[in-house]
C-alpha cells in the first residue's frame, strides 16, 4: 500500500488562489456574461462537481458547446473543449464519444442551440442513447443575437420579435428528452446550486444519454423586455416559485410565464448505450468473427481502486 504514488498536481498554485483556477482559462477572464447572469453559476457548478468527484479524471473530460451565450462555456473551461457551429454541438459530441470512448463528453450549451437549431440532433442522440452529458442552460430567449423568440419562450412573454407577447407554446424539455430515450433527466434552476452540483456528479459516473436542463436568469434581454427586474430579482422569483418534485408527471412540467417551475430528477434508469447495442447486434450477426472495441465500462474514471469504491 505504501508504494502508491501521491496524487499529482499539474502546477504549483498559491494557497490563496481560487480552487477552480486549474480548471479555468483565467487569462480569458473576466468573462463576457452580464452581471447577474446565471451562466457563470452553472459553469461554477460543473467545475465544482468535477473537482469534488475525485474518481473522474479531468484529462478524460471533453466539453463541447455550440453558439450562444452558453456556448462560451467551453472556451472558459480548461479541458479538451470545442466551440462548434450553431446547433451542431451534439453531432460533434456524438462523433467524439464514438471515436474516443475513453472520454466523457459534456455538451454545455443553451436552449437556442440544443433545442431549436440542433433540436433534431437532440432527439436522435437521445434515441440512440449516446454516452454523453447534455447540460442545457435555458434562459427562455436567444440572448446573444438580440432577444428573439426561442422555442422555449413561454406563451405571453415578450421578446424582440414578439413585442406584444409570444403566441406559441414553449417546449417541455424534460418530457422531450425523456420521451426520446434519455436515461437521466433533471431540471434545476441556477439557484439550486447544491442539487445541480450533485446531479452533475451523479451524471459523470453514469453511462448513457443524460440531460440536465438548468433554468438561468437573463437580465439583459428576457428580464428587461418583460419588466422582470434584474437577474437577482429572477433568482428571488425562482426561490419563491420553484418546487421540487422528483416524481412529477413529465407532461405537467410546462413552464408558464410567471408560473411555477417544477424542478427535480425525473428519470434515472439504466439502458444499453449505442455501443452496447452495436456490439450486441454485430455479435449476433458475425458470431466469433466480431472483435469488439475492448474498453472498461467507465474509462474516464481514473483507477480500479476508485471504481471499486463506487460500486460499494
Amino acid at each position, binding site marked *: 500500500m505504501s508504494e502508491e504514488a*501521491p496524487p499529482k498536481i499539474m502546477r504549483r498554485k498559491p494557497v*490563496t488562489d*481560487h480552487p477552480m483556477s486549474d480548471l479555468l482559462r483565467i487569462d480569458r477572464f473576466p468573462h463576457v456574461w452580464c*452581471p*447577474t447572469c446565471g451562466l457563470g453559476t452553472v459553469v*461554477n457548478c460543473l467545475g*465544482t462537481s468535477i473537482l469534488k468527484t475525485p474518481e473522474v479524471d479531468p484529462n478524460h473530460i471533453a466539453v463541447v458547446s455550440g453558439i450562444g451565450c452558453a456556448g462560451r462555456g467551453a472556451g472558459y473551461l480548461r479541458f479538451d473543449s470545442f466551440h462548434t457551429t450553431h446547433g451542431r454541438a451534439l453531432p460533434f459530441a456524438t462523433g467524439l464519444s464514438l471515436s474516443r470512448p475513453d472520454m466523457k463528453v459534456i455538451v454545455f450549451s443553451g436552449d437556442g442551440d440544443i433545442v431549436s437549431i440542433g433540436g433534431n440532433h437532440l432527439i436522435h442522440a437521445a434515441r440512440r442513447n449516446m454516452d454523453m452529458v447534455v447540460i442545457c442552460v435555458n434562459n427562455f430567449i436567444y440572448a446573444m443575437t438580440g432577444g428573439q423568440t426561442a422555442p422555449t419562450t413561454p406563451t405571453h412573454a415578450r421578446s424582440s420579435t414578439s413585442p406584444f407577447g409570444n403566441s406559441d407554446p414553449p417546449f417541455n424539455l424534460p418530457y422531450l428528452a425523456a420521451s426520446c430515450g434519455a436515461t437521466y433527466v433533471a431540471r434545476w434552476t441556477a439557484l439550486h*446550486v*447544491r442539487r445541480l452540483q450533485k446531479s452533475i456528479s451523479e451524471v459523470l459516473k453514469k453511462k448513457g444519454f443524460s440531460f440536465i436542463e438548468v433554468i438561468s436568469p437573463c437580465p439583459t434581454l428576457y428580464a428587461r423586455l418583460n419588466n422582470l427586474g434584474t437577474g437577482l430579482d429572477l433568482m428571488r422569483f425562482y426561490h419563491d416559485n420553484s418546487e421540487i418534485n422528483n416524481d412529477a408527471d413529465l407532461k405537467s412540467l410546462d413552464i408558464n410565464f410567471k408560473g411555477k417551475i417544477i424542478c427535480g430528477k425525473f428519470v434515472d434508469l439504466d439502458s444499453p448505450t449505442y455501443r452496447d447495442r452495436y456490439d450486441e447486434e454485430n455479435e449476433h450477426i458475425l458470431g466469433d468473427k466480431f472483435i469488439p472495441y475492448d474498453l472498461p465500462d467507465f474509462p474516464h474514471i481514473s483507477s480500479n481502486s476508485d471504481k471499486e469504491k463506487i460500486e460499494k
Partner: protein
Amino acid sequence: MKPWQTPLDVDKQKTPHGKIHIIVDRCKGCGFCVEYCPRDVLEMSDEYNQKGYHPAFAAHEEKCINCDLCELICPEFAIFVLKDDDESEDKLKGHVDTVLDDSDEEPSDEKSS
C-alpha cells in the same frame, strides 16, 4: 431550536469557521452571495473596483461557517472560502510542496545512490 438532550460528544464538536477570500477586481456586483449567504456574512461595498462595480465584502467574517455557498453561486469565480483552521492550511501547503519536491527529487536520488 434547542436540542432536547445535550449531545454526549459536545466537547469534541467545533463549529467550522471559514476565511473568505474575494478577488475584488473580478466581482461584477451581482449580489447573489450577499442575498443567499445563510449567515448574512457578506455585504455590498460602497467602494468601486477596477471595473466600476461595487464588490461584495465580508462584513461579519466571524459568523462564517465555511458552507461554500457563496463560492458555488458566484458567477464570476470571484469569491472562495477556505477553512479557517491552521491544520488544514498547513496540510494544503504541505501537499502542494511534497508533490513538487517529489518530481524533482526522484531523479536526484537515483544519481546519488
